[in-house]
Every structure is written in structure tokens, then in C-alpha cells.
């Protein structure tokens, strides 16, 4: 139970940050940082996929209700939850067992961590912007939006990620 409190706190902070700050920012149409996928990324790696998926469902529904996504946020977070372990294995060549109690995120090198987070952001942002536009009339603009928004999300989330791993996950 106590182990879950930091994760719940992190979830609330990230949701608050996204809904009340980042979503209100109007930097540019093709520059939209989204931090809430970090919630799915940072959930304990040893968690079974079903729990990660249900957590993603809860986060997605909250986002949809708060921002009027009508299912868009949920639809883009669920694949992230299901593919999390696979992406981790592909990007870092590390596999996780269900009974693994050691925190894998804290044992990853910075490079591996960055590749994992970047891949997750790119996957999420790709799904999100493709579903949002539902059009390939301006593919360059779509690709630019995905790449630049993923990059900005990574830059903003990196200090939060490092802080959370060093202060919470490692302990």
C-alpha cells in the first residue's frame, strides 16, 4: 500500500500538470507536449500487463473526461500499456519477469532509459496525432508534429523522470 502512494502522487501531479498547465499552453499547433504517458512508463515494471492496462484505462478516462477527448486519450494509452514490456525489450534488450521485485528502471543506464522513454513517447504521440487528424493530406506536418512534440515531451519529462527514479524507485 505504502509502495503505491508515490505512484498515486506522481499520477495526480502529472495529470494536474497536463490538464491545467500544458494543455492551456498554446506554443504552436505542431508543438504539443504531453506528459501523462509518463504515468504508464513509470509504473513498476514487474506489474502484470493487466494491471498496467487497467491503470492506463483509468488515466485515459480521466483525461478524456477532463479534456473532452471522447475516448482519444484512452485509445492511445491502452496500446502503450500493452506494448510497454515489448518496447522495453526491443529498446534496451531487458526482459521483465512477473515476479521480479527489483526496480528495473533504476538499473537502466541513462542511454537505455532515454531510448525507452523516447520510443514510448513517439509511439504514443504517433497514435494520438494520427487519430486526432485522421488525415494524411499533409504528411510532413503530421510527422513534424509527432517528432517535435515527442522531443519537447522528452525534454520536459526528463528532470521529472530522473527525480522520480532517484527519489522513489531506487528506494
Amino acid at each position, binding site marked *: 500500500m505504502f509502495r503505491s502512494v508515490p505512484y498515486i502522487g506522481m499520477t495526480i501531479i502529472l495529470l494536474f500538470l497536463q490538464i491545467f498547465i500544458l494543455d492551456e499552453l498554446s506554443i504552436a499547433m505542431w508543438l504539443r507536449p504531453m506528459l501523462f504517458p509518463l504515468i504508464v512508463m513509470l509504473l513498476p515494471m514487474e506489474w502484470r500487463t*493487466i494491471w498496467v492496462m487497467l491503470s492506463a484505462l483509468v488515466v485515459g478516462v480521466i483525461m478524456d473526461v477532463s479534456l473532452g477527448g*471522447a475516448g482519444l486519450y484512452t*485509445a492511445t494509452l491502452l*496500446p502503450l500499456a500493452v506494448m510497454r514490456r515489448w518496447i522495453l525489450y526491443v529498446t534496451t534488450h531487458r526482459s521483465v519477469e512477473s515476479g521480479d521485485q527489483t526496480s528495473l528502471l533504476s538499473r537502466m543506464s541513462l542511454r537505455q532509459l532515454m531510448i525507452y522513454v523516447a520510443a514510448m513517447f513517439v509511439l504514443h504521440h504517433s497514435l494520438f496525432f494520427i*487519430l486526432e487528424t*485522421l488525415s494524411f493530406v499533409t504528411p510532413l506536418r503530421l510527422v513534424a508534429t509527432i517528432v517535435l512534440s515527442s522531443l519537447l515531451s522528452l525534454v520536459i519529462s526528463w528532470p521529472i523522470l530522473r527525480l522520480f527514479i532517484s527519489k522513489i524507485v531506487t528506494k
Partner: protein
Amino acid sequence: MHRLLEFIKLIYVLVLFVVLEGFALWTYATSSPYTEAKILSRTTAMGAAVSGAVTNVENFFALPEANRQLTERIAELNEEILGLKEGCVDTLYRGDELVEKDSKFRYHYASVVSMTTNRKHNNLILDRGTLDGISKDMGVITPENELVGYVVSCSDHYCVVQPMLNIDFSTGGRLEDGGLCVIWWSGASKYEVEAKEISVYSEPNVGMSVEVRSERLPEGVLIGTVTEYELNSTKSAYSAKIAIAANMSKLDDLLIVENTHYGEIEELMNHTQE
């Protein structure tokens, strides 16, 4: 039952994911007319692609049936050819030629490549040439046995036809009552030709049919029907206007008629003139 439960246990995460994802996508798709239209068009396109692939597979497996039908058709045609060879009808097919049995006339199929009808010297180009056995002076008729014109020049693969709608055109004609005449075109109308030098002993009537009278074509080739006639000023012959039977502005597939004895006739005429 135990195996079924094991199987469900194995795939329940995937099933749950598909259900939740499907529900989320459906909610999003039906949230606005734009998303509804976009997703509907995408799914329709995907459905069409899948349907097309299924149809291709079905067609592939239906090939034996198509082969059977083709074989049956070949058998029917073989029977027809045998019947023709045994003289049940008056014509025979040889390759793409239709030959009248025991006749000096041979028919070649041809298609119109280009034609004009709005000039004084109109021409018609057909897709058959000397390599197909076509030569100058062959007659050209419609499949309905109506006169079109005569071949005036040939290349290897094409021939030029002088149609009735050419002021240089001239051929012999015969009225229904046997009266002979000369057919020519004045250039006045693309629906009518003129008949001149009709014998005063003939009795032309409106509606009377006029056929070709030429060594280049067999009997029975229709030119048209008389629309009006009159005695000439010297009262020595009739002249008449003939409504052309063939639709000269809608020609497509035609028959080129070859008189296999024409060379002999031409040679004889040349000898006589000398």
C-alpha cells in the same frame, strides 16, 4: 473444459485490450460527424480492399468452371465449323475471313480507324492492308450488306476507302425493276447520293431500293432507296435522289469484299482497250 479455461487464461489480456480499445475507438469515432465520416470512409476502403482480395481468390478457384465453359464453347464452334464444311450453309470461315462457298467473293473483316463526312473529298481509313490481302478496287460494305465505298489505296497495314460521300465516287446501280443507273455524289447532303442516266423505260418510284451493279461486289448490296426522281431536260433519262442505306457517320466494323476474279476481268478490259 480445462483446456478452454487455460486458453482463455492465456489470451484474456489480449481479449480485454481489444474490447477496451475497440470501445474507446468507437466512442471517439462517434463523438463528432468529422471523425465518424473519416473513420467510416477508412473502414469502407479497408472493407473494399478485403472484399477485392476475397473476390480475386474466389475467381482463382472458379477458373476450372470457366475452363469447362470455354471447352463447351469450343465444342459448339467445332460442330458449327463441321456443319459449314459439309455445306449446310453458303458461307465458310477461314481464319478471320468469311468466304462464300463456291463463290468468287471473299470477305475480310476490318475496323474503321478514321473517317471524314464533312468534306467534298471524304475518306475512310481501315485497319487492313496489303499484308491482310487487301488491294485497290475492293468493295467495302457494312455487315448489313449496305454499300460504303471502294478501296482506293493500301499500305501494309491500312487501306484508304473512297466512300459514297466523295465527289469523285462513281459506281453502277440497279433499281428494283432492273433499270440501270450511275451513282454519284453531288456533295449536297451526307444522307443522299444521286442516280443519273436511268433509262426512260424504267419506272422509278419513291421508296424503290437501289442495289450495286458492279463486278467488284456481289449482287444484293444495297445503296439506298429513291426519295425523288425526275426526267432530265432532254427527256432522255431519269435522274433520282437516293437516301443512303448505311449510316455513314456511324461506321465501325466493316467488310471488305474481294472478287477473286477481278484481276482477270481487269486484264481482259485492258486487252480490249488496247
